[in-house]
């Protein structure tokens, strides 16, 4: 039977208190939110934190999706199911609903959180690609105040983020610009599995031209892959299937998948291209309100 090593446990009663505990306990302390990644890792002894700080009672402070004028703010403790059901998000960034429909299963979605997903920093995790595509910023708080980090700087290595010891990811901010459309495309070996590959795309269309674009890929690199070269190719051009095909080609080249039980490298590169093209097409159709 799988049991974790022994650990101390405390339930935080405020964000400030949680951060104070994290600062006091140092590198052997971990935050537990949904627990759907951390607990299995502890049971498998891949992780052996000495202290768990449970933030599940902080919903009043950390669970929300709100329009703050020019930005949507998402509390780090917001559950997958709330992201899935949010009409506000669906209106501005349907990519979240696309992704949430294929993240694990309802049991996991009822409990898992956006903050937990991003902080787990699993390269196959979906929301990291979504946040990369929509140019999200992460709000990280410590005892000395807070800092705001773009997604490119958030993931520093597999399973490692910019959140330091003594800090807590508290919020995700999504900037709002006109003409936005977004979509997430994922292929998995079985329903609810980690992606073989997934692509998130957001476009901002202005007078029939791609004014700006963001593309993130899951499961085809050591961290979420930010397709900057493909974005460069698309920016300032009128959207077309040929253009998206070219962007897909760039995606195939610019990702760095590894062969595993989910597929060989060549197939994953192929899939990265197919899904990038699909996500761009769908995102653009949504931006132009032409989605079939």
């Amino acid at each position, binding site marked *: 039977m*799988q049991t974790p090593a022994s650990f101390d446990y405390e339930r935080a009663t405020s964000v400030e208190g949680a951060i104070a505990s994290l600062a006091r306990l140092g590198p052997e302390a971990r935050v537990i939110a949904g627990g759907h990644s951390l607990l299995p890792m502890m049971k498998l002894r891949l992780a052996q934190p000495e202290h768990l700080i449970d933030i599940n009672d902080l919903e009043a402070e950390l669970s929300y999706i709100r329009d703050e004028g020019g930005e949507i703010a998402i509390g780090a403790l917001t559950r997958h199911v709330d992201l899935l059901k949010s009409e506000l998000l669906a209106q501005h960034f349907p990519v979240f609903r696309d992704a949430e429909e294929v993240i694990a299963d309802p049991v996991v979605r009822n409990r898992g959180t956006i903050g937990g997903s991003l902080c787990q920093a699993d390269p196959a995790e979906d929301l990291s690609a979504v946040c990369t595509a929509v140019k999200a910023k992460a709000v990280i708080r410590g005892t000395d105040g807070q800092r705001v980090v773009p997604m490119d700087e958030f993931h520093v290595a597999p399973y490692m983020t910019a959140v330091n010891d003594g800090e807590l990811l508290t919020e995700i901010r999504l900037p709002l610009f006109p003409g936005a459309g977004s979509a997430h495309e994922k292929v998995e070996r*079985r329903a609810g599995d980690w992606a073989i590959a997934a692509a998130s795309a957001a476009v901002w269309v202005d007078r029939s031209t791609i004014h700006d674009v963001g593309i993130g890929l899951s499961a085809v690199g050591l961290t979420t892959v930010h397709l900057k070269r493909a974005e460069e190719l698309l920016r300032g051009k009128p959207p077309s299937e040929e253009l998206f095909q070219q962007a897909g080609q760039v995606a195939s080249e610019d990702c760095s998948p590894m062969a595993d039980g989910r597929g060989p490298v*060549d197939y994953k590169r192929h899939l990265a291209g197919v899904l990038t093209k699909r996500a761009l097409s769908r995102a653009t159709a949504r931006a132009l309100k032409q989605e079939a």
Partner: protein
Amino acid sequence: MTATDTLTRAIGTPLARIEGREKVTGEARYAYEYQPENVAYAEPVQAHIARGEIRSVDASETLAQPGVIAVIWNENAPKLADGADAELALFQSRRVAYRGQYVAAVVADTQEAAREGQRLLRIDYVEEPHDVVLRENHPKLYTPEKVNPSFPAHMEKGNVEAALASAAASVDVTYRTPAFHNNAMEPHATVALWQDGDLILYDSNQGAPAHRDAIAGVFDLPPERVRVIAPHVGGGFGSKGTPRPQAILAAMAAQMVERPVKVAVTRQQMFAVTGYRTPTIQRMRLGADAEGRLTAISHEVVEQTSTLKEFAEQTATATRVMYAAPNRLTTHQLARLDVPTPSWMRAPGECPGMFALESAMDELAIACGIDPIELRALNDTQVDPEDGETPFSSRDLVGCLREGAERFGWAERDPTPGVRRDGRWLVGTGVASSTYPAYRRAAQASARAEADGSFVVRVGAADIGTGARTALTQIAGDALGTSVDRVRVEIGDSALPKAGVAGGSMGTASWGTAVVRACEALRAKLDDNAELPAEAEADTSEEIEQQKKRARHGFGAQFAEVRVDSDSGEVRVPRLLGVFAVGRIINPRTARSQFIGGMTMGMGMALHEESVMDAAFGDYVNRDLAQYHVPSHADVQSIEAAWLDEEDDELNPMGSKGIGEIGIVGTAAAIANAVHHATGKRVRELPIRLDRLIECA
């Protein structure tokens, strides 16, 4: 009232599981939940090499860990009986036969301490080069004397080569299936305690009496000194058909530390020590005349076993049953590799064998230009095709194919592959036959009439989640001529009348026969005005020995519709239909669960499951359900099981055939055939992975 008056009162009704409420409320106790006083915990330590020898064990750090009581390995383990199952001869040798083998164990006051002790144990090995990859030209291939359980490895009739050479149409293709690991929801677990020299085991298994006998043998005890208790079992699928090392470890550790001991196998350990389905390489050759009548059937199988013991899966035996043809060849060859011993996994033999045969039949239908259902109907037989004379007790393969075709809408099918599109999805349909033998094994049972008008029926059967307890209650109720709520059936304990395991799809037929005979004997006593309580017993050895020679098999037809994404290679299965002719259905509710459960596993075999051997380390690498993929509910869209009314009075008093395994047989071929119909691409190696459908680079 006579027995026949009441025979169909409960049989055939969808009685809900008798222990269903206990299970969903958590009241039903599974092996690991028994908590004797002063219990200790043992954690096995697994070999880190695939072949070699233990040089030394350094237990100092482990023994210094608070709570650790003992470390067991070759040097201090008690001697077990000679000649025991080599997979159960725990710590009897320093040799390592495969990576993951149990080579030591840590016993502690708590599970946490045992696990920490396990982590701290230092084992030094003398490593030897290992050989873990099966291939068709492996120099160690040999023909075993028999295949599981006692079929000839090699059967030959007529002249296959000559018939193939002169056939109007033929196929000569090789199919490959990977190793598959059976993973029941409840991993194997045992709680062992010794009482005055008697051994008591709470264990998760497919048959308490058989486990009692085997474990008694390992410890050189008379069987009556051992009791195995297993009232509820969370699945087995063959992997709990024989004792596994954790049961021996629990008993041995309990003996050494003189305390009850618990052992729970982890999901990861299940990929090493609890059995699996061998990978197979199957060359299929079929020849037919101009009309599509088979002239030759050849099925040559290559598979693996371990260096510890021989397990020879009967992969080609279904081919000996399915179709008529004058020239026939079925062979099995094995290589002994440095791997764990393969074992029973749902429909051993039939399941991988029918993937090859039924895929090849599809290929032959295309080669002949005949509809695949017509090809099968044309080659149907009513006598055993190997001896050409033994009649089937009943056989309605063609009825299943026709009924399925009607329900599935087969008549409108255009056979041309790769031409139906729905957007980027390619759409296709496929069919395959299914079969499983209808065996019976001798069993004993007792029936008792209580003074209050209720009845107790006892039989050493097992309910591993199949609904056996419920089906036996229905059988007993009818045999006693009473309602099911007045009958209590006791199973899952080796102290009950001796009966065989839940395996080979013969549980209900074997136990049910004994139950009916015991109930009949009790009724005879009651008819003679016996005083209450009254009891009668039955033993079916003689009845089964004297049954007429017949070919007894269930048959079925599997239909699949698939959609394949032409860009990504994703496969969806919008529809699965299975139609079965399996005698009388005892309980349509639990029967349906058996069929669709098997069919879902067949879908997993076709598309998802694959145990990947790491040749460098000699280990199956994907040892959890995040890496070893099985279908989830969302992967199964429409799945339907139906059955024909089939009367067969040459089976058993219920007229039933076993249904535990037939559901998985043929499903993978139906899906693979549908994938070919959709895409024009024939994938002969399972699983049908996305990258095998999309050619890259």
